[in-house]
């Protein structure tokens, strides 16, 4: 019995003194709990639906007003201000709205045939389109009831029917969202973990000291390591995108094949930012055991707050502004704009500026804390 007790006491002491174990048993689940506890997956996020009203009558105005949630009514659909059909079609193709509803002329009057409401939706987002459809149908019932005193759904169908048409769009639905998001995440992880762990290990094993005994300038080794990491990350990004393309059938940079080349700029630029972060961590940490918790404490929150696995719309309002400025948010948003909608690297000025500011801050820190031994 005494032997068991002696071992248990010794093991509890060892466990308590092992920072990495403490991190994974307590800090990691706590971070996860905090992040996921604050996220609001239940919040109703009205689908973005453009409306073109060709009827211009009391019934159509009433329908639009209810859907848009004028006055103090709840917002059922998020409706863009414009009602110009070509413009909205372009928005749909760009993936900026989920669906486009066209209210035909003569809507609301019982003619020889019921009027046909066309809904064009992005083929990558059928769930959102069909939830918009059911919202519109429900609203139609209410509108006809108010305007023409038509109570039942059966009769409503004599007045208006809905035709759903899938439209090819540049937005690639959740598959495109997740592929580009994970590629962005992998850039950060590869840079931060790769550099920080390697450097801490080389330093604690004395490899760096051995290089300092040679006539080379030790910064040559550091530069080579950074360049190597950039090559690895570039290869990694292209391989992961090719896998996404071949297995999920997503188009990389639709309508803008130059994206493949421009990605090189983005990858090298962001790799530099995150490699600096990795070097800072490796200089602050003494051993691999302390590097891991520090790196994870920085990376994990970003992994869930930068819209990698789910849209940032589930992030509560008080936290959302902070997540706008995370470096991974800038990277993921740029990656998505380029990969999923085929936008040019050079059109992403805001995001690039955000990354550049982070790059300057992190680089300054890494120079301040950097040490060879």
């Amino acid at each position, binding site marked *: 019995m005494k032997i068991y007790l002696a071992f248990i006491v010794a093991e509890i002491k060892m466990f308590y003194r092992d920072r990495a174990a403490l991190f994974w048993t307590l800090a990691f689940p706590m971070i996860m709990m905090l992040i996921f506890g604050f996220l609001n997956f239940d919040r109703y996020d009205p689908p973005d639906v453009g409306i073109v009203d060709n009827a211009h009558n009391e019934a159509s105005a009433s329908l639009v007003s209810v859907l848009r949630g004028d006055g103090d009514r709840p917002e059922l659909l998020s409706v863009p201000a414009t009602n110009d059909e070509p413009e909205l079609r372009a928005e749909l193709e760009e993936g900026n709205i989920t669906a486009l509803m066209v209210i035909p002329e003569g809507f609301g009057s019982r003619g020889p045939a019921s009027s046909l409401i066309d809904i064009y939706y992005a083929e990558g987002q059928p769930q959102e389109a069909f939830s918009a459809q059911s919202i519109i149908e429900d609203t139609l019932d209410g509108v006809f009831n108010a305007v023409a005193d038509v109570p039942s759904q059966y009769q409503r169908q004599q007045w208006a029917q809905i035709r759903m048409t899938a439209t090819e769009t540049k937005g690639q639905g959740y598959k495109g969202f997740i592929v580009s998001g994970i590629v962005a995440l992998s850039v950060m992880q590869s840079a931060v973990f790769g550099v920080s762990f390697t450097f801490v290990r080389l330093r604690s094993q*004395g490899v760096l000291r051995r290089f300092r005994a040679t006539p080379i300038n030790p910064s040559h080794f550091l530069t080579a390591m950074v360049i190597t990491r950039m090559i690895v990350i570039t290869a990694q990004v292209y391989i992961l995108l090719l896998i996404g393309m071949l297995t999920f059938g997503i188009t990389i940079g639709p309508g803008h094949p130059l994206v493949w080349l421009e990605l090189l700029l983005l990858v090298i630029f962001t790799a530099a930012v995150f490699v600096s972060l990795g070097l800072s961590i490796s200089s602050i940490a003494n051993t691999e055991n302390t590097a891991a918790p520090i790196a994870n404490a920085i990376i994990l929150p970003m992994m869930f707050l930068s819209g990698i696995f789910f849209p940032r719309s589930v992030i509560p309002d008080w936290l959302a502004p902070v997540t706008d400025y995370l470096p991974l948010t800038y990277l993921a948003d740029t990656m998505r704009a380029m990969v999923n909608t085929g936008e040019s690297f050079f059109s992403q000025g805001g995001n690039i500026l955000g990354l550049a500011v982070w790059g300057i801050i992190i680089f300054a820190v890494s120079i301040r804390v950097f040490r060879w031994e």
Partner: protein
Amino acid sequence: MSDAIIEARELRKRYRDIVAVDGISFSVRAGEIFGMLGPNGAGKTTTVEMVEGMREPDSGDAFINGISVVKEPKRVKSIIGVQLQQNAFLDNLTLAETVGLFATLYGSDITADDVLSQVGLQDRGKHNYKNLSGGQKQRMSIAVALVNDPVAMFLDEPTTGLDPQARRNIWGLIRDLRDSGKAILLTTHYMEEAEDLCDRVAIVDQGRIVAMDTPHALVNALRDRGARSEHRDGALNLEDVFIDITGKDLREGTGSESE
């Protein structure tokens, strides 16, 4: 001493309020093995690092083949061979690849086979460092120190942790290097290693050289001072000299001597 390859002159170094090296001078000739002995924290490692150009002295200078390490550390580094106490090389590279990499760093065109066969590792070229035995690892780190055919070699505790066979094997290798004309400076905690292997030794304590001569002369001097052996055979050895000079107190206060 005109044929001195390694020469240290009045080296001094302090870390904040601790004087690590307090005016150390010595020289090592070509074809000589010079041992530096001393308790932990005596300043051996700091001294050697200053001579190697890895640490800048506060004052004083060291010369390799007449080249000042303070003025031209890179030139000095390119003609010396360094083996560090804690040996580690890049993971997942074979011995031949590691030797090749270091040869490039020194701008040397010697082949890996050539270097590895000098230390008897010619059939281990495709192996990984971490799979070697302790003695093989030490020979590998000596091999890496040989890629530039150095005039002077610095070996930091080259046989620590080795079994008697492996230790004698390393001694043989070091004697071969001496016989090829290199000046060799080694640090060690093993007194019988210093006694057997070194042509001259310096005993360092508290940042100063407190004795410097051949092991034989140091032992004779101790006998002349009238010291009595505590050994069963009544003989005195270098360890007795070491204890007589540096005392019996434990030197654990500073822990690591690199700081």
